[in-house]
């Protein structure tokens, strides 16, 4: 469920005017920006951008980019974009890093719905004049490349039907592939990147029933083996995305790993989806509400913005 608190009716012209006012003169009224944008959903934000453009012949996003800075600017920029466009930007940033952020690419390709992923691919082409898969292919090598290209190219069947015999046989294939350390990567990649999500969950459940432990535990290994790490991420994203995001948040707050953008990324991308459930999971797991930890860990406008997206009343 979404966490943002959105009014039933919004006047996009008034919102555009309010944002203009917040950006005029010396300094910027960040609180005003947060109080408008932090309480609008994607459709509304799009209308506000159109209204702003019409009124002031200027791209709202460019204006915000020039007025804001730091983590706050990054968060607002990502928030204001269309979800598909946002994912395209996140993917491109992840790909172009010296050492690409595989997990971000896996996150996007495995937690979005098939239609959403198609929209991301379209948005990526519009923005970067390349296909997402060709850029992923050009910046990765070996088995990781095979896995990532397959994951971003997938257009999974979206139905509920499960073939239990197939789940059984593919659970066995996965088991054999994993157990044999000289790994048959081809079959694992085939199953993970082509099967529907429902079918995969049935397969993972079957695996757990047969083997007594979850497949993610069996995939724990050397953190140096990036293919293994990527596989594990993919399985976790496909199997239980909320649990996956909770862990990403937890690690980010504890400063485990090097994913500095994780906090912004998860909150911005999930605020209109399932951040409520992720928050609940976090609270259960850590005996502390997520808002409290975010409040302690961040400061200033960035903190205020994140808390607004988390649904906290000002």
């Amino acid at each position, binding site marked *: 469920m979404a966490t943002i608190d959105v009014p039933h009716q919004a006047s996009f012209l008034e919102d555009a005017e309010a944002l203009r006012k917040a950006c005029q003169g010396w300094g910027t009224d960040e609180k005003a920006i947060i109080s408008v944008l932090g309480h609008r959903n994607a459709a509304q934000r799009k209308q506000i951008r159109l209204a702003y453009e019409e009124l002031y012949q200027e791209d709202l996003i460019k204006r915000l980019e020039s007025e804001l800075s730091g983590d706050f600017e990054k968060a607002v920029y990502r928030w204001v974009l269309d979800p598909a466009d946002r994912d395209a930007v996140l993917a491109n940033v992840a790909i172009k890093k010296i050492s690409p952020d595989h997990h971000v690419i896996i996150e996007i390709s495995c937690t979005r719905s098939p239609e959403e992923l198609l929209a991301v691919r379209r948005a990526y082409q519009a923005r970067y*004049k390349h296909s997402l*898969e060709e850029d992923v292919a050009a910046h990765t090598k070996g088995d990781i490349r095979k896995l990532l290209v397959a994951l971003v190219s*997938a257009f999974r069947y979206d139905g509920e039907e499960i073939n239990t015999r197939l789940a059984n046989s593919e659970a066995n294939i996965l088991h054999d592939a994993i157990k044999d350390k000289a790994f048959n990567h081809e079959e694992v990649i085939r199953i993970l990147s082509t099967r529907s999500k429902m079918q995969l969950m049935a397969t993972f459940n079957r695996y757990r029933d047969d083997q007594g432990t979850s497949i993610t535990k069996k995939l724990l290994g050397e953190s140096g083996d990036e293919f293994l790490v990527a596989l594990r991420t993919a399985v976790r994203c496909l199997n239980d995305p909320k649990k996956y995001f909770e862990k990403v948040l937890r690690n980010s707050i504890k400063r485990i790993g090097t994913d500095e953008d994780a906090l912004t990324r998860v909150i911005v991308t999930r605020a209109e989806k399932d951040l409520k459930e992720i928050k609940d999971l976090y609270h259960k797991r850590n005996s502390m509400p997520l808002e409290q930890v975010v409040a302690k860990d961040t400061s200033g406008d960035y903190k205020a913005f994140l808390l607004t997206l988390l649904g906290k009343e000002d």
Partner: protein
Amino acid sequence: MADLEALIKAFSGIGVDENSLISILANSNHEHKKSLRKGYSKFFIEDENGFERLHQSTIKNLKLEFKRFRDAVVLSLLHPWERDARLIEKAMKKGPRHYSVIVEIACTRSSNELLGARKAYHSLFDHSIEEDLASHIKGSERKLLVALVSAYRYEGPKVNDDVAKSEAEILSNAIKNADKRKPIEDEDAIMILSTRSKPHLQAVYEHYNKICGKTITEDLEAEGILKDTVECLCTPATYFTRVLDAALTVDADEESKKALTRVIVTQKELREKEGYVPNKIQGILTGSYKDFILGLVARGEN
């Protein structure tokens, strides 16, 4: 006799001459038909039990020729997405000799047309194309075919010429090392062919020619669907001409004849090639099938 000649003619060529058959057979009495059978040695054989028996293979071939008009009509009526999804599914089920159809569709449709076919496939078969192909195909073609149907290629004109040049070299090496590793299984070759835009691949094609003195398709002559892939992506007109030529010959096999229907129905541009196609069609096709195909060619519009 005149009727026998007419009957034989009605069953020669691609399709059947329905009108001719009506005028010959509708009023034909028992004796007349007997004399037709006795004269038609290609179709009938004297059975030891005292009757003229139809060849088994003729039954099968007649079925195919009568079906041709029907299949052309249905194919042209279907929404292109459903049509392509069904063509791919059939080709996959029929086996390796038919995989070139999958290549043809994946590589000659636009990015959005291919996407549409993938959506239609979901609706028709409750699976994604890639999962069915990946689990159905066990041979060396699997990786290439799955990658080709999964592509959503950029369709703009922008090409990075340096990259195209280096990728031409990569392909050249993959082909040179064919004895160590089948080019169709070369990861880099698959990546290039399945992710790059068509304008980019055309630039790669040009660079390859400059580097190697031969075209990629010439060097891939022995490589089956890998050759088809390059042809469909870089020189589709050549590919379709080749397919049509193979179909419009006197002893074309069934697959080539089916290709004729498929290509004429699905390719608008080809139909505008004046003279060549209509002339050959007049000579080799017959009946309602001929009329329908000629109509499609003449109209030039889908």
